């Protein structure tokens, strides 16, 4: 490793050759302001178009200011990051950017969380001396994502997320000069493109150009309607991140406060998607063993590896890109949809209500779930199993609207029966968690033996693709894990080429899994936040008495009273689904 010594703001710095001034400054605690630049460590995400010039610094001996995010350090370099010249240049750049930006902060969905706004405040911009024409672009409202491209500053972070990390490739810079903007092919709306609604473009957008479709008003309408019983479910990853919306340390678990705030907001039943995650394991695990045992008996037609199907963005991805393999994923619905299907049958029956009298709301770390609830196959006579899906951020907004002092809430529990869950279901929120939960249950069913150790550290971590072999009492089960759709694509190409050796593969669309979902509090490029959420998830699991899905007493009861058997007739009707070929065909 070659080493470079330099001076930044009079402090000596030693870094590896090839480091940028910006990254070098970080090592001594100097944060040079930046806007277009973003790097997500370990996530294959690096966006440095060098376009905005907010990060300029003065390098002794050079005539021009240098963009710190793009300039590599050299031996003996002397850098000044806050000379008057630098600060003035930054302010000028900022004013130029703002001269083509609608000043709508008061009503903008991103206000208070917007990198552009923060920077304008930090630089103390009080007037914009440049006046010119403002660019206007077509807006776009898809079921999950709103694009207000007048607010786009052309940092191109969204392109990097969509094209390089997710390899979905629906976004590209188009046109030139003043007309340039990030758009889809032929400027179609997102819902006519191959967009998966993973929301990773929203997660990295510094401004209000990309945001989720806000459904909080719909939830309020339901809560105010006396004829409706409003039931809420919360996904595993929400409890590990919601606290951040209220300034709490990343990684603070707020399960109890979340339940209590939902009750305060007026939901009639506060339930947990974790219950449905346990149910998913019963179904998906049974399906896995079904295929595996057929395979072991010599059935050549059986589809292996089985792929998990809990992530709706991942489902969209294979429907668009690998429809010829749509028989491989598990047919199990996502936990969100399993919950809805059970709530509107089993639970509605218990309440002696019609399914239409229930409104099921889901709180998700995810934007793809907003699209998922709108899919026709998840409706019965037009009535959706889940009526409204809101993000972690939107729940934060509702709690603030209602003037609830979140930090001061006392912990409360979920309601029964659809609020009981095991540790296995909590870890659904992180990469590696679904397959670990499945292993805990499948092992015991397959071998008839009790697991001594339920923690499978070999399945945990943050690398994009991981593999492990788990010993099922002499039977080696090979498991693959991918998070981020670009990594998923690699495993799928292997399967397509007949090179895959796995029995089962877990796939989550978002880097880190749902803890890094497109609906989570913004991480502003700090990957440590995702790691802390992951630790919180495993801590919640470790603290539970029950840690295997099949031990959940209410799941047992559900099968006894209502469903019969996992993968049985009724389960198939309610808890399994089918997939579509959405590949665009070229007309020739």
């Amino acid at each position: 490793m070659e080493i470079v010594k330099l001076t930044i703001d009079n402090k000596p710095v030693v870094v590896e050759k090839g480091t940028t001034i910006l990254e070098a400054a970080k090592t001594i605690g100097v944060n040079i302001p930046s806007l277009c630049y973003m790097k997500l460590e370990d996530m294959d995400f690096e966006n440095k178009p060098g376009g905005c010039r907010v990060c300029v610094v003065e390098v002794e001996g050079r005539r021009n200011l240098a963009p710190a995010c793009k300039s590599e350090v050299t031996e003996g370099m002397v850098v000044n990051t806050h000379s008057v010249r630098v600060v003035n240049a930054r302010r000028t750049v900022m004013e130029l950017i703002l001269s083509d930006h609608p000043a709508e902060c008061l009503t903008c969905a991103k206000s208070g969380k917007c990198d552009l706004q923060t920077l304008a405040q930090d630089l103390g911009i009080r007037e914009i001396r440049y006046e010119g024409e403002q660019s206007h672009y077509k807006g776009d409202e898809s079921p999950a994502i709103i694009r207000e491209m007048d607010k786009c500053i052309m940092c191109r972070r969204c392109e990097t997320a969509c094209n390089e990390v997710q390899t979905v490739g629906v976004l590209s810079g188009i046109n030139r000069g003043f007309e340039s903007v990030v758009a889809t092919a032929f400027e179609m709306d997102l819902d006519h493109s191959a967009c998966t609604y993973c929301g990773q473009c929203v997660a990295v957008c510094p401004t209000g150009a990309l945001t989720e479709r806000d459904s909080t008003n719909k939830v309020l309408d339901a809560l105010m309607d006396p004829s409706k019983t409003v039931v809420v479910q919360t996904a595993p990853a929400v409890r590990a991140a919601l606290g951040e919306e209220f300034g709490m340390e990343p990684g603070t678990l707020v399960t109890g406060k979340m339940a209590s705030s939902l009750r305060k907001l007026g939901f009639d039943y506060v339930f947990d998607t974790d219950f449905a995650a346990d149910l998913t394991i019963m179904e998906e695990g049974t399906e896995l063993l079904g295929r595996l045992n057929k395979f072991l008996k010599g059935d050549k037609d059986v589809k292996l590896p089985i792929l998990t199907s809990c992530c709706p963005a991942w489902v969209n991805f294979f429907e668009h890109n690998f429809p010829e393999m749509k028989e491989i994923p598990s047919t199990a619905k996502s936990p969100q949809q399993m919950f809805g299907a059970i709530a509107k049958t089993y639970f509605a029956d218990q309440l002696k209500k019609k399914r239409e009298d229930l409104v099921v709301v889901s709180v998700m770390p995810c934007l793809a779930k907003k699209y998922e609830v709108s899919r026709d196959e998840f409706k019965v006579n037009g009535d959706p199993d889940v009526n409204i899906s809101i993000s972690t951020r939107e729940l934060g907004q509702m709690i603030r609207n209602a003037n609830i002092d979140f930090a001061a809430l006392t912990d409360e529990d979920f309601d029964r029966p659809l609020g009981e869950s095991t540790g296995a279901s909590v870890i659904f929120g992180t990469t590696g968690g679904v397959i670990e939960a499945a292993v805990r249950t499948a092992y015991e069913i397959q071998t008839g033996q009790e697991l001594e150790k339920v923690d499978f550290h070999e399945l945990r971590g943050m690398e994009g693709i991981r593999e492990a072999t788990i010993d099922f009492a002499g039977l080696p089960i090979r498991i693959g894990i991918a998070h981020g759709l670009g990594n998923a694509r690699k495993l799928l190409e292997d399967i397509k080429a007949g090179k895959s050796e796995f029995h089962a593969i877990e796939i989550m669309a978002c880097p880190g899994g749902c803890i890094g979902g497109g609906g989570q509090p913004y991480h502003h490029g700090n990957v440590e936040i995702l790691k802390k959420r992951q630790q919180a998830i495993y801590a919640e699991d470790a603290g539970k008495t029950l840690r295997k899905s099949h031990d959940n007493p209410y799941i047992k009861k559900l099968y006894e009273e209502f469903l019969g058997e996992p993968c049985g007739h009724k389960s198939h009707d309610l808890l399994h689904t089918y997939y579509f070929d959405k590949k665009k065909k070229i007309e020739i």
Partner: protein
Amino acid sequence: MANIKLPANKVQELKDVCEKFNHDKGELINVLHAAQGIFGYLPAEVQELVADQLNVSIAHVYGVVSFYSFFTMIPKGEHPISICMGTACYVRGAEKVLDEFKRLLNVKVGETTPDGMFSVSCLRCVGACGLAPVVTVGEKVYGRVSPEDVKGILAEYK
């Protein structure tokens, strides 16, 4: 977007071009150039085909097509009208002639009339300066055109 059917022989021709360029992503601009030569313009279907052949995203292809003004997504009219804007033609009033075409056809430069009959474009010097201002319709060349002649020229093709 209305789907159009691409003629099979032209599709094959484009595929051969891609083959010749080894399906190399780096040759996207050259492939698009050739595609426009084959089809006369670059409709969505052609861009999709190119994306497929070079294994790049369709958004990226569109990004490139929309960046370069040379590329066009609008088919030329049955009778493509070109007005020379070279210096000689320009000083002799080519712009007024152009304006008259635009007015009568109600299109902008680079556009095609809704019935697909006429498209209007500008040319750099065609080398017939003695005849300035020069207008071509398809293969036919008109010299010393004045705005008053425009109506008559169009009438020949209706």
